[in-house]
């Protein structure tokens, strides 16, 4: 059976910590971090490896801060 595996890379320089991505992530992979970027925003971080690469986060992200990968894995 084919399974999908995804990953997100967050550009911490443009992330403004609006958390819209956190709200739409079905696997709760994204969460507010603890550090601030150069603009003073608490940027979002990845907190688990359950990402399916659904692109909900990158689609809702106003700042195009998220790059998404997705791969089909045959088990």
């Amino acid at each position, binding site marked *: 059976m084919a399974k999908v595996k995804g990953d997100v890379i967050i550009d911490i320089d443009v992330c403004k910590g609006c958390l819209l991505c956190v709200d739409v992530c079905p696997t709760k992979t994204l969460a507010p971090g603890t550090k601030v970027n150069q603009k003073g925003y608490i940027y979002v971080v990845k907190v688990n490896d359950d990402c399916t690469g659904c692109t909900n986060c990158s*689609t809702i992200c106003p700042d*195009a801060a998220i790059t998404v990968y997705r791969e089909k894995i045959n088990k």
Partner: protein
Amino acid sequence: MNDTLHLAENLVYKRPKTLINVAMHYCPGCGHSTTHKILCEVIDELNIQSEVIGVAPVGCSVIAYDYLNIDMQEAAHGRASAVATGIKRVLPEKLVFSYQGDGDLAAIGTAETLHTCNRGENILIIFINNAIYGMTGGQMAPTTLENMKSTTTPFGRNVRKMGYPIKMTDLVATLPGTYYVTRQSVHTPANVRKTKAAIKKAFEYQRLDRGTCFIEVVSNCPSNWKMTPVDSNKWLVENMLPFYSLGDLKVPSKEEN
């Protein structure tokens, strides 16, 4: 972690090329940013960077040209559609759009907007409606909802005194010059995708010289609505969408497609 996951063939989303790689000045969660992003995605996907000329308004998106890697002109407040008309008339083969907010398009620029649509100028007008003047600090916009608070309607918009929220998109849909008129939003991933599809369609119609395409994007303004971005999108669903209902208001007839 799978070794092959980060191969280029598995890339499903990355920042569009046309969106310049700088942090935008917009507040966190602002629909302007989202709309800029999908506009750039469309420009990339249609490969039209060299054909597009944009017109920025006065308002929060006044420096949209700092983020979009295309030729652009900055218009006076409300005049973006007249400026776009001038560009399109002398360069009819190019793809021209204006990007305007509600104060710009629906208050000071009402005459230019209506007459541009009425002439059926073959341009795309993108209209961001967040029911408030964002850049000047949250004053009442023509689209501010009844009873909605703003810095100039501190007790809520009394429509008997301050007029009614204006539905520009409904107005322009009635004009024979418009070809495709739709009201969309960017508050969920599904809505973002729909808005992007609408922008793409509008550029395709522009190539066919069919008349004005008008896309309203019902948007949020977390800072001036004084709520978090997530809450602002909830507020949008509960308050904006019942009045500014989403969907196409004018679609091409079947024979033309």
